[in-house]
């Protein structure tokens, strides 16, 4: 299997699907020659041309709405939303239009559109370019929400997203783009939605981790190994649909759970998953379910401030030690 960066894996998935299906096109700000500010889409316009890799004005609601209409009428748009923070700008078109069209029309209209966007702090980009807003979209019935954490997952989940007949939001952590990993080059390699991946097997505590928090959990697990604590890492990979059974299965084995996600902790992803565990694995628990999200403050600019707002391996390890009483 070839080794690719996360960014290359996303690029490969898009290119393969565009070759496979002529109705797939990418639309967004500086997606063509620029290949986005993160260069994830570099090379696609050269292969597919400007009719399928379409630069737009800086009009996020406008091009998202255009994507909804194109999706309803036979195309499969990939709407590129440069920063996850801009989800706030497109909420009507995504939440009121794309998410509801199939249901409100009694199943007549379909919106096979994928929104590609980002999350993640610690790039010193301050409060309007650093948010992790997956809870906002996961809250709206009718959307599917995908958070890949490795290059292989990025490729397999992306291919599934494009083939899905529903609006899907794929959120990539900007800090992951240079992460490398083995990625299948089979063009039929897809990963089904709603299936957890156990990223590390362990016995003492389950850490349910999303997106780049999987790497935080892996680093924490290394620290905890020195303390004799064995960590199992469960990556949901998709928030909607959520593999509740896969999460519960792990907690039933370990008896302890910590949920970590980079969205704000209050009313967030960690709350939902902790509730699932409390509800469905209550009798297996040896301790209360713990949560670790971003602090409930706007992401600050100064490094000394920003670094204390996000989950870290040290914080997670500390929480795990307290949980197992070591």
């Amino acid at each position, binding site marked *: 299997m070839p080794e690719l960066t996360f960014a290359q894996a996303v690029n490969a998935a898009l290119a393969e699907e565009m070759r496979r299906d002529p109705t797939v096109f990418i639309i967004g700000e500086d997606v063509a020659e620029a290949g986005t500010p993160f260069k994830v889409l570099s090379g696609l316009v050269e292969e597919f041309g400007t009719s399928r890799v379409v630069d737009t004005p800086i009009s996020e*609601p406008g091009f998202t709405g255009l994507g909804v*209409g*194109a999706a309803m009428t036979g*195309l499969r748009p990939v709407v590129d939303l440069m920063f996850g923070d801009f989800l706030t700008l497109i909420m009507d078109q995504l939440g009121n*239009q794309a998410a509801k069209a199939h249901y409100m*029309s009694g199943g007549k209209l379909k919106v096979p559109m994928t929104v590609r966007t980002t999350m993640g702090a610690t790039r010193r980009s301050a409060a309007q370019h650093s948010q992790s807003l997956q809870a906002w979209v996961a809250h709206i019935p009718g959307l599917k929400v995908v958070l890949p954490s490795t290059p292989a997952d990025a490729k397999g989940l992306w291919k599934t997203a494009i083939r899905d007949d*529903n609006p899907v939001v794929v959120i990539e952590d900007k800090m992951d783009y240079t992460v490398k990993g083995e990625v299948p080059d089979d063009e039929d390699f897809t990963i089904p939605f709603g299936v957890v991946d156990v990223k590390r097997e362990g016995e003492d505590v389950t850490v349910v981790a999303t997106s780049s928090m999987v790497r935080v959990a892996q680093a924490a697990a290394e620290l905890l190994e020195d303390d004799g604590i064995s960590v199992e890492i469960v990556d949901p990979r998709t928030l909607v649909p959520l593999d509740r059974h896969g999460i519960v299965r792990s907690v039933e084995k370990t008896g302890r759970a910590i949920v970590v996600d980079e969205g704000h902790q209050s009313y967030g992803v960690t709350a939902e998953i902790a509730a699932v565990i409390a509800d469905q694995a209550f009798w297996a628990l040896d301790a209360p379910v713990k949560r670790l999200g971003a602090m409930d403050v706007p992401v600050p600019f100064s490094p000394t401030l920003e670094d204390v707002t996000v989950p870290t391996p040290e914080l997670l390890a500390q929480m795990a030690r307290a949980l197992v009483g070591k």
Partner: protein
Amino acid sequence: MSATVSRTEIGAELALDMYRRMTRIRLFEEQANDLYRGAKMPGLTHLYIGEEAIAVGVCSALRRDDWITSTHRGHGHCLAKGADVARMFAELLGKEAGYCRGKGGSMHIADHENGNLGANAIVGGSAGIATGAAYSAKFRGTDQVAVCFFGEGALGQGLVYEVMNMAALWQLPVIYVCENNMYNEYTHYLEATAGDILARPKAFGIETREVDGQDVRAVYSVTAELVERARNGSGPAFVLANTYRYHGHHVGDVDRAYYRSKDEETLWRDERDPLAIFGRWLEEQKLATPEDLVRIADAARAEIEAGVQFALDAPFPDPSQVTEDLYA
């Protein structure tokens, strides 16, 4: 103002069909009003009475495979694009036989087979969808055209300008039809709209027309020209159709004196009624006798009555259907 089309351009068959469809919308809306006031219809509804000439004039210039998007005041657009009266009523009453299986209601009727991509309860919310449908037609190399119906209230929404900009940049086959019924809900549009409305699309280089929205022949003529233009790849257009909403913003908006006068309402009903104007023309042109027009109304009434009865008799959806259609 554009010149209206002559008798030869419209033809007797199309003229009578347009009158039939306007009558159907008028009677449909009167029936919807009765259903609502008789507590047989849940929720809320917004009547199109007074504006019939726009939906019919525009949709008469479209093919079945052309697209429209509609608004919260959308019954007229849906019917004009070919929707069936009985299934429309069934949807208004929340019945399973309705266009949306009872999940959309009055403000969300979608009729994909007839090119209706959905009525939309977000003011201006469908401008992107219509523009995207036009994008799709161009991308797929068909000659389909998309029409976006919206009220003048949507002129306050930024999305409308974002997509007009892209439609002009990319020469998309989309026609923005602004129905100016003069009231943004309960506020006169001049209190909410600065400058010249047509200067806005013109700023994007979009072809613009202003038309008397009470004159179905004028609406048809202008639309037919712009549709032809769009099909030929000459890009988007904007139509400002001036009209009047006879009833309130919604059924139940009955005390309107604080925002408009009885005299104004009477003037429009008595002197600017689109059905009366068109009916007179049909008679003058000897395309129909007064008796013909009565017969058309009677036939429409019978269709409406049968449709309502179908809807009243139709079953509500089983509660188990609540989770169906969430994902495709």
